[in-house]
């Protein structure tokens, strides 16, 4: 992973992971710790934290400075209960999927392989949060010109 576009895509994915870690942390705070959603939120939190750490290593290995996490993020809407937490989780996975698809396009080798797997995971995790299945998760239809 040495191209400028691959580093840029990895940085975008890393930024999305920072948001995901923050958002899943917020979600965990509004859920019953013993409930099934809380278990899934903790699992998702760990997954995204591991990816964040991995992407930081990837960016550093390309002699770039990883994009830092912000102190906090403005979420789309207040997360006040389980329904809000689940809706936010859907959004997070959808946005991460878009950055993974971009990373697949920009990278090669092991990093692309990782991104391919992450895209599948985001799609199925989003589904588990109630997202509708789509023909091309993470991709937007291109305008015809």
């Amino acid at each position, binding site marked *: 992973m040495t191209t400028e576009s691959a580093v840029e895509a990895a940085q975008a994915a890393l930024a999305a992971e920072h948001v995901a870690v923050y958002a899943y942390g917020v979600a965990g705070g509004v859920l019953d710790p013993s409930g099934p959603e809380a278990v899934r939120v903790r699992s998702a939190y760990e997954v995204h934290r591991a990816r964040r750490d991995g992407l930081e290593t990837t960016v550093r290995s390309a002699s770039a400075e990883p994009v830092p996490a912000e102190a906090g993020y403005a979420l789309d809407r207040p997360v006040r209960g389980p329904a809000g937490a689940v809706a936010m989780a859907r959004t997070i996975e959808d946005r991460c999927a878009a950055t993974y698809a971009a990373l697949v396009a920009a990278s090669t080798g092991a990093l692309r392989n990782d991104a391919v797997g992450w895209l599948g995971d985001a799609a199925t995790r989003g589904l588990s949060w109630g997202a509708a299945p*789509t*023909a091309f*998760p993470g991709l937007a239809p291109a305008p015809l010109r």
Partner: protein
Amino acid sequence: MPPTTVSRRWLLGVAAGAGAAAATGCAGTSAGPSEQAPTVVPGDLDRARRAAADAAELVAVVAGAARRHPELQPLLTGLGDRHRTHVEAFTPEVEPVALPGRMPVPRSRRATLRLLRAREQRAAGAARRAAADAGSGELAAALASCAACLAQHVRLLSAALADTATGRS
């Protein structure tokens, strides 16, 4: 970074070659609209053909399952629609992929769901491998996304199987 995009016309452009792409006025899109026509990377046309053929086979087997088990249509309609979208996306314009004829489908609903799940898993694996090997980043993203969709199908079919095991459907 703008979202990665996919369009049938882009893939058609890849399949038909840069000249045809220029003639139809479409362009590669991974980093936003570009005036440059896509170029064909060796092996990518075969990867797109294979993805289209796999999707066409899935269209046929899902249609057969829906005919034999009409009660599964609420689930299978969406699967079939998405497979048709994949066929359309990956089919080279110059050589349309023929849909296979009727596919054999088990009488048992559970066996049918297991068959569908196995076919989806197999196609997802093939799409993931093709994504890893693709020369074009745009095609790689489209194949990886297709694989992600098929992984969603596997999840949906597993849930349907669990429902049949517990008598919920």
